């Protein structure tokens, strides 16, 4: 055996760590570092959003009025609930209740899929309304009294909308996959109160992805209800 990971008893202590404590701290620290890089990753998009929102405020207001606030708000609620079940799931793992953990994580997965479904409905709506940037882009406020003042820059709003929510949705898909992996490992009885790092770390990731949405929702959906211009 070279240095592949030797499973030590039921504790899954990897060979290069001195003890479980070191292994646990290390992996949690690693997850936090990873989330830091994720913040920077989304940060580039948020930065672009803020720059353009400041320059083309009216266009952004008009774009945001095309958002279905109810679907967005529902999705926000769904994600908050999923964070709750995720947190309870981690707690269950810690308390040595593997069945409860699996149940809670399955609910989390359902919430995640629900979010993605609702998001898909929204995407479909935007798509048929030509609110996808590119040659087919076409924007009208829908109100003949107030024609679009700055449709050209509203396209930038939609570019950012698709990029930011799309990237977030991709993270959700990965998140659902990770939770599923934990559930499968849980069914095999891989976790004990001494060893549940993976559950904890996937939980951290899930909360992070939720948190990104908590910022995306007001920034993209709730810019201003007043008609700009």
């Amino acid at each position, binding site marked *: 055996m*070279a*240095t*592949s*990971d030797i499973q030590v008893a039921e504790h899954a202590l*990897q*060979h*290069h760590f*001195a003890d479980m404590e*070191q292994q646990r*701290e*290390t*992996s949690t*620290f*690693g997850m936090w*570092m*990873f989330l*830091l*890089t*994720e913040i*920077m*990753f*989304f*940060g*580039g*998009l948020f*930065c*672009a959003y803020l*720059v*353009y929102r400041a*320059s*083309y405020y009216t266009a952004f207001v008009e774009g945001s009025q095309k958002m279905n606030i109810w679907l967005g708000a529902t999705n926000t609620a769904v994600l908050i609930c999923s964070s709750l079940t995720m947190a309870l799931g981690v707690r269950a793992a810690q308390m040595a209740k593997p069945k409860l953990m699996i149940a809670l994580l399955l609910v989390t997965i359902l919430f995640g899929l629900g979010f993605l479904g609702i998001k898909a409905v929204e995407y479909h709506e935007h798509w048929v309304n030509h609110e*996808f*940037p*590119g*040659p087919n882009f076409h924007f009208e406020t829908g109100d003949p009294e107030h024609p679009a003042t700055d449709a*050209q*820059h509203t*396209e*930038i709003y939609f*570019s*950012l909308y*698709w*990029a930011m929510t799309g*990237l977030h949705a991709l993270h959700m898909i990965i998140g659902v996959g990770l939770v599923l992996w934990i559930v499968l490992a849980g069914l095999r009885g891989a976790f004990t109160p001494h060893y549940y790092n993976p559950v904890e770390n996937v939980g951290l990731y899930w909360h992070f992805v939720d948190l990104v949405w908590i910022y995306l929702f007001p920034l993209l959906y709730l810019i201003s209800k007043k008609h700009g211009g």
Partner: protein
Amino acid sequence: MATAVQTVERENYLNANYGIKSWLLTTDHKRIAMLYLISITAMFWIGGFFAMMIRLELLTPAGDLVSSDTYNKLFTMHGIVMVFFFLIPSVPAVLGNFLIPLMVGAKDLAFPRVNLLSWYLYMAGGITALTAMVMGGVDTGWTFYTPFSTTYSNTHVIGAAVGIFIAGFSSILTGLNFIITIHRMRAPGMTWRRLPLFCWSNYAAALIMVLGTPVIAITLLLVAFERAFHIGVFNPQLGGDPLLFQHLFWFYSHPAVYIMILPGMGVISEIVTCFSRKRVFGYEFVALASIAIAVLGFLVWAHHMFVAGISVYAALVFSLLSYLVAIPSAVKVFNWTATMYKGSIRYNTPMLYAFGFIGLFTVGGLTGVFLASLGIDVHVTDTYFVVAHFHYVMVGGMVMAYMAGLHFWWPKMSGRMYPEGWAKLSALLVFVGFNTTFFPQFILGYMGSPRRYHAYPPEFQVLNVLSTAGSSILAVGYVLPMIYFLWSLRYGEPAPPNPWNAVGLEWMTSSPPPTHNFDETPVVTWEAYDYENQPQEEVTIGH
């Protein structure tokens, strides 16, 4: 000549097991370092080939060797390969990967499987980018400036961007692994103040990898989206701002030069102390200078944009901060020089490269001060002055440090000694060839010769010929080590555990080290570079 290694070779990470699978699925940081060494060496020669083509084209003022489109692809691919696939991974992924666990007294990096994943990502990114190049190439310059890259270029921009995007994650994972390892995996007694400076400087570089790389990733992703779906984030025709691209690009790509140079500085700190047999002068200052460079490095990106149309006041702030980032670099140079004072100096090849590094990095750094100065920058930015400046830092600095490090730790990595005489010759060739190649470019730059020109006015020819002549000397200087390193694998003298009589935990295990690095976890009770208490024995290997 050490005798311990004459008998049956003890088991080490190289002979622990055999077969292609034992390498491709390894999680041993030393083997992954070797995988990286092979891959980035290949990348170095690919990038070097492009460089030679560029220099040959520039022998004559007319664009006669290759077409202008080909030339544009050549300098673009030279930049992409050298920056993203050679310089950024070079010292961290090869020497850092190999040495950081050894230096802190750990059995492996914190996440061995993540480490292997990072090599696969590097390979996937490299193959994607190379495929784009083979299929027709990219002609945007390694900087991918919009709207040229998003709208006007009709080459394989998406392929190259995706390749860099993937390789970026390799860099993030390596950085993450280093940070966690240095925080959590240190052996008992290995306090932060006893940490070798190589670890400090890799730690600082890792911070930049972790915090900066995601930004370039998202930026290049947006470029790819913009080409594929015609979204308009950087397209001025849709009201997008091409300067936003430049801000996001340089937010990573300026700190990226510190990813490249900081680990090199760490190598030099190890070598100068070893061959002077002295504690490093001002340990805390050298260590903190690394961190200061990493932090300040994040605040100077817009000095690439002084003529790009940013506000005068922004330019002023970025100019000031650019001066500040030069100070810690100067502090390091002075400290290395002072380390040699009253030392006991030996001229082995690593030390010769280190001399070269200090001198050339000083020139590179000081010409950076020219560029930080707003009034001068307006004249010389985007000319050969800039080309010369960053090659002095990247090649004169980083590649010199990488070569120094390879020679220094080659006995540890391979278990063999390299031939000292040939190595000294190559160090000399590299130094002479490098200066002949790039010093004329400073003069060209101040005369106003713009960079990325396929053809140039005839009055610039003499200096260009000089530069091309120098580059052929440089090429020989790089081919030599390639040959004798390979030769030494078979015919080199077996290396003792500590051929340089150096301090540092990596020298306290056998050469090459066993798979688990140390037979028992070392306990550190001495300060870093404790040459005072290291017995003074004359080692005659290689003389």
